[in-house]
C-alpha cells in the first residue's frame, strides 16, 4: 500500500491515501525512503514525523507503511557500540559513507555476521516462561542473558556458535527463540514489580554521595546554565559510577565533546573490572546538528537498551545530556504540527512525557525473579540559567535528587558546582542509614555536623560583609576557616586528577579530618589560645 506526500514543513510531512496505518507506525517517506513515524491520523490523511533531513523531499513522492512501530534491536553486540538516535551504528556509517552523515543508508544496528558462543541454561523438554533466560553469551565481562520473548515447552535448543540471524531454540508451538529481539522504543519493557530504592549508587563525587546520594533505581536531575560543568559532571559519573552498564545519551550536544568522551572511554580502564571503560558502555549520540526528530527518539532508544540489560539482572545507569534538548525537539515537532502551545511554546503534554520517561527508571524484580536496576542522571539546560522554565520544573516534580549547578560557584572554579544549600535528595534518610551501616557508624553524625557548619557559615558571611573578617570573634573566624577547608578540600573535586573518584571511605576520611581540626582548634580557643597561633601551628 502506498500513499503520497501532500505537504512538507520542516520535518513534518502530510501524507494522503495510505489506509490501515497505525499510530506510531514506522513509515518510509519519499523516493529516498527516509525513516518516519506516524504521529497523527485524520481520515485518509496522516501526519508523519521524519527522522532525517527532509531537504530535497518532493510533493507527490510515495510513502509506504511498514506495519511495525519504531523499534530497537536488542541482542549481543550492543556494549561498546556508538549509535545515533535511531540506533544506527556510527562506526558502520563512517565506514560506508565517510566522515559526513548523509542520506538514509539502512544499516543494521547489530552485526549479523559476527559469530557468538551460546551457552544454554535450559534443555529440551523444559518449560519456558516469558522472560526466562534460555542461555547466555559472553559479551566482554558480562553474561548476556538471552531472555525468551514467549512461553512454551522447549523442543530443541542450540549449543555452541551461532550468528544473530539463527534461532537458538524452538518451542513446542513451532515458534523459534532468537538471540535478537526487536522492541518498540516507546513501550517500557515488562517486569514483575518495582521495588523501593534503598541501596546507594556510589558516584565517587563527595558532594553527591555525602549530601545528596542517589540510590540504584533512582532519578537525579542536574540543571545548570552553560559553563556550570553539567557535561563534565555527567561524564565523570559515567566513568566511575559503581554500576555494571552505562548508557550515555548525547542528546543535542556538542560533537567535539562526544569525540573527547569516545577517545577517553576507549583508553581509560573500567574502575570496577579489568576492562576498558567502553566495554561496559553504550553511547547514543545525536549531536545538535543531527536531525531534530531523531533527537526526540534518541532518549527512548537509550532507555530501552538500558531496560534490556536491567532485565538480565544488571545495575544500569542511564546518563542523558541534556533533557532540555529533547524537550526542545518535542517543541519543534509540536509546533510544526500546529498544535496548541502551552507554557513557553512547549506542548501541553510536555510534563506527562517527562513523567513517562523518568518513571522508566527503577529497581525491579524482573520477569524471571532476578533484581535489576535502571538509574537515571539527567542534565537540564535551562535557558538563561532560569530554573522557573517548564523543563526544569517538570523534572523537579518527578526526580528524587536535585543537583543544582550554581553559576557563581562555577565562576570561582568550584567544581562540581553543586549548590549545597539548594540541592536535595529525597532518598537521603534511607541512604544515610545505609552508609552508616556499610561504611562507618560516624557517617550520619559527620553528615549532620558538616551541614550545620555550612549553614552557620552562611549567616556569618553576611556579618563579615558588614564588619569585615578581622572584626569577627576567634570562634567565628575558625568556623569560616573550617568551612573554607570543607569547600576546597572536600566539596571541590578536580575531574582531571586522581581525585576525580572518591570512595565512600576516602570521603569519610577527609571530612573526618576537617571536623577533627575544627573540634581541636575550638577546644584550644576555649583554653584561650589565639586564633593566629593555632593557624601557625
Amino acid at each position: 500500500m502506498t500513499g503520497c506526500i501532500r505537504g512538507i514543513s520542516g520535518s513534518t510531512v502530510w501524507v494522503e491515501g495510505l489506509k490501515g496505518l497505525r499510530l506510531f507506525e514506522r513509515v518510509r517517506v519519499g523516493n529516498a525512503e527516509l525513516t518516519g513515524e506516524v504521529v497523527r491520523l485524520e481520515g485518509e490523511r496522516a501526519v508523519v514525523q521524519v527522522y532525517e533531513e527532509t531537504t530535497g523531499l518532493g510533493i507527490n513522492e510515495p510513502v509506504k507503511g511498514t506495519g511495525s512501530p519504531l523499534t530497537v534491536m536488542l541482542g549481543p553486540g550492543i556494549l561498546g557500540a556508538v549509535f545515533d538516535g535511531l540506533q544506527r551504528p556510527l562506526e558502520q556509517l563512517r565506514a560506508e559513507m565517510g566522515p559526513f552523515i548523509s542520506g538514509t543508508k539502512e544499516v543494521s544496528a547489530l552485526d549479523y555476521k559476527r559469530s557468538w558462543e551460546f551457552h544454554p541454561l535450559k534443555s529440551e523438554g523444559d518449560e519456558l516462561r516469558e522472560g526466562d533466560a534460555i542461555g547466555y553469551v559472553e559479551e566482554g565481562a558480562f553474561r548476556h542473558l538471552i531472555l525468551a520473548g514467549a512461553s512454551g515447552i522447549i523442543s530443541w535448543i542450540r549449543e555452541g556458535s551461532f550468528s544473530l540471524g539463527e534461532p537458538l531454540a524452538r518451542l513446542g508451538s513451532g515458534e523459534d527463540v532468537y538471540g535478537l529481539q526487536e522492541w518498540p522504543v516507546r513501550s517500557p519493557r515488562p517486569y514483575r514489580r518495582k521495588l523501593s530504592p534503598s541501596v546507594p549508587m556510589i558516584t565517587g563525587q563527595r558532594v553527591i554521595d555525602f549530601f545528596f546520594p542517589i540510590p540504584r533505581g533512582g532519578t537525579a536531575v542536574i540543571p545548570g546554565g552553560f559553563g556550570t560543568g553539567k557535561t563534565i559532571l555527567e561524564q565523570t559519573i559515567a566513568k566511575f559510577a559503581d554500576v555494571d552498564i552505562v548508557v550515555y545519551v548525547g542528546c543535542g550536544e556538542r560533537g567535539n565533546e562526544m569525540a573527547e568522551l569516545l577517545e577517553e572511554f576507549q583508553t581509560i580502564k573500567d574502575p570496577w573490572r579489568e576492562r576498558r571503560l567502553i566495554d561496559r558502555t553504550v553511547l547514543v549520540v545525536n549531536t545538535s546538528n543531527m536531525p531534530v526528530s531523531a533527537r526526540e527518539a534518541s532518549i527512548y532508544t537509550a532507555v530501552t537498551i538500558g531496560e534490556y540489560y536491567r532485565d538480565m539482572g544488571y545495575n544500569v545507569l542511564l546518563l542523558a545530556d541534556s533533557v532540555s534538548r529533547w524537550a526542545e525537539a518535542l517543541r519543534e515537532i509540536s509546533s510544526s504540527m500546529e498544535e496548541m502551545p502551552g507554557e513557553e511554546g512547549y506542548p501541553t503534554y510536555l510534563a506527562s512525557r517527562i513523567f513517562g520517561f523518568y518513571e522508566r527508571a527503577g529497581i525491579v524484580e524482573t520477569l524471571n525473579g532476578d533484581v535489576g536496576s535502571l538509574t537515571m542522571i539527567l542534565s537540564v539546560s535551562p535557558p538563561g540559567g532560569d530554573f522557573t522554565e517548564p523543563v526544569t520544573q517538570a523534572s523537579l516534580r518527578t526526580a528524587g535528587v536535585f543537583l543544582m549547578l550554581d553559576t557563581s560557584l562555577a565562576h570561582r572554579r568550584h567544581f562540581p558546582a553543586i549548590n549545597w544549600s539548594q540541592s536535595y535528595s529525597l532518598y537521603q534518610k534511607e541512604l544515610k542509614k545505609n552508609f552508616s551501616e556499610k561504611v562507618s557508624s560516624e557517617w550520619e553524625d559527620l553528615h549532620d555536623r558538616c551541614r550545620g557548619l555550612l549553614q552557620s557559615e552562611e549567616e556569618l558571611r553576611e556579618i563579615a560583609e558588614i564588619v569585615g573578617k578581622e572584626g569577627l570573634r576567634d570562634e567565628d573566624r575558625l568556623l569560616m576557616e573550617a568551612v573554607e577547608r570543607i569547600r576546597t578540600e572536600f566539596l571541590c573535586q578536580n575531574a582531571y586528577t586522581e581525585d576525580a573518584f572518591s570512595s565512600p571511605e576516602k570521603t569519610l576520611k577527609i571530612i573526618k579530618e576537617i571536623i577533627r581540626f575544627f573540634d581541636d582548634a575550638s577546644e584550644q580557643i576555649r583554653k584561650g589560645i589565639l586564633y593566629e597561633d593555632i593557624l601557625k601551628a
Partner: protein
Amino acid sequence: MRLAEYRYRTITSIGGPLVFLERVQSVRIGEMVKLITPDDKEMDAQVIEIKGETVLLEVFGSTQGLDLEKTEVIFTDSAKKAPLSEAVIGRVFNGSFKPIDGLPMFLPEKWVPITGRPINPVARERPSEFIETGFSVIDGLNTLVKGQKLPIFSCSGLPSKEVVAGILKNARLPGGAGRFVVVFSAVGLTFYEYAFYMELFNEMMTSFTAFVNMADEPTMERLLTPRFAITVAEYLAFEKGMDVLVIITDMTNYCDALREVSTAREELPGRRGYPAYMYSDLASLYERAGRIKGVEGSITMLPVVTMPEDDITHPVPDLTGYITEGQIVLSRELHQKGIFPPVDVLPSLSRLMQRGIGEGLTREDHRRVSNLLYSNYAKGRDLRRLEAIVGSEGLSEQDRKILAFTDTFEKEFVNQGIQRRGVIETLELGWDILRRVSLV
C-alpha cells in the same frame, strides 16, 4: 531530475520576505527558485513549506518590485549551492556569493549545497593543538585550540573588532602555519566596520576570503552569508587540507534575520520573539567547526555576538554558549578602565583548554599558573566588594595581598594593548605578578 523547466505566474500573496504560490505541480522542500519581476529584476528564493499545491517561498533579498500578476517563478530543481574552487582565496564576495572586488567570477571546480552535512561524531578528531593568539588573557587562561568554536561575547560600544583584528594579526599555529587561511563572514556590517576589516586584510599577509553582507543590504541574505562562508571553509579545510579560521560578525544580526522570517511565517515565538528552533539552527552553523580523523585541515570558529543590553542571558549569547566550546566575554567595566583587550576572565571559558596545554604543547606549568591566577583573581573580585563596605582595615593581610594582585593582574596581565605576547612570555608574566605581591 525534472525534464522540463517549470514556470509559474500564480503568486497569491506577498508579505515581508514570504511569497505564496499556487497550483504548483512538482516541487521539493528546500528547492531554489528564481523570481523575475515585471521589470526583469531577478531574485533568489527557497521553498520552505509545501501544502498540497500551495508553496511558501522565502525570498533572499528585497521583495520590492514583486507583484502578483506578472512576476514569474522558475523552479530550478536543486538546493542552494555554493561554487567552490581554490580561486576563492583573496576574493571578496557579497552575501549572495557575487564578487564585489571588481574582478570577474571565478570558474568553479564544483557546486556544493550550502546546508552541509553533519560530521559523524565518531569521525571527529579530538581538538588538541594550541593556537597562540598573542593575547595573554586568552592564551594563558582561556586557551584556543585548532577545531574549536569560541565566540566573543561583546557589548555595544566595546572594541570587539579590535580584539578580532589583534587575533587575526597575531595568531600562530603550532609548528608554523602550513596553509592558513581566514574566511571572514560579515553579517549586517556597517560601512565603518567594513572599511576597518578591509584595511586590516590588506595589511595582513594571511590569505583570506570575505563574504560581506552590509547593514543596509537585504536581511534575508544574512541567513545565507555565513553558510556560504562555512561551506567554503569546509572545502578548503577538509578537501584542500588547510587550517581555516572562520570569523562571523555579528551573529546577533543573523539571529534577528531568523526572527524576522519566523515572525513573517506567523510561527509561535519563543523567548524574546526568537523562533523555538533557533538552537538547532545555530548548531547547524557552529557544529561545522572541528577536525576530522585522517584529514589534515581544520575549521576553527570565532563568531562575534553582541549581547543586547549587555545581557549574557539574552537568547543569542545564551544559545550560542550552550553550543560552543566556551566563550570570551568582554567587559564594559574593564574597557572603561582603559584595559585592552577588556576580557573578563571570570565568565570566560575555554572548554577545550585542558587538552591544548601542558608539557609538549605549551609548558608543563601552564595549568598551575593559570589556576593560581584565576582563583586569586576570583577571590580578589569578591574582596573588592567587601572592601567597599568594610574598608581595607577590616581585611586580613592575605586579603590585602590578593587585592593588590587583582589590580596588577588587570593592569599588566589582561591589559597589553596591541603588543603581541608569546605564550611563554605570558606564563612568565603570570608568575612574576604572583611573586611580586608575594602570593607564591
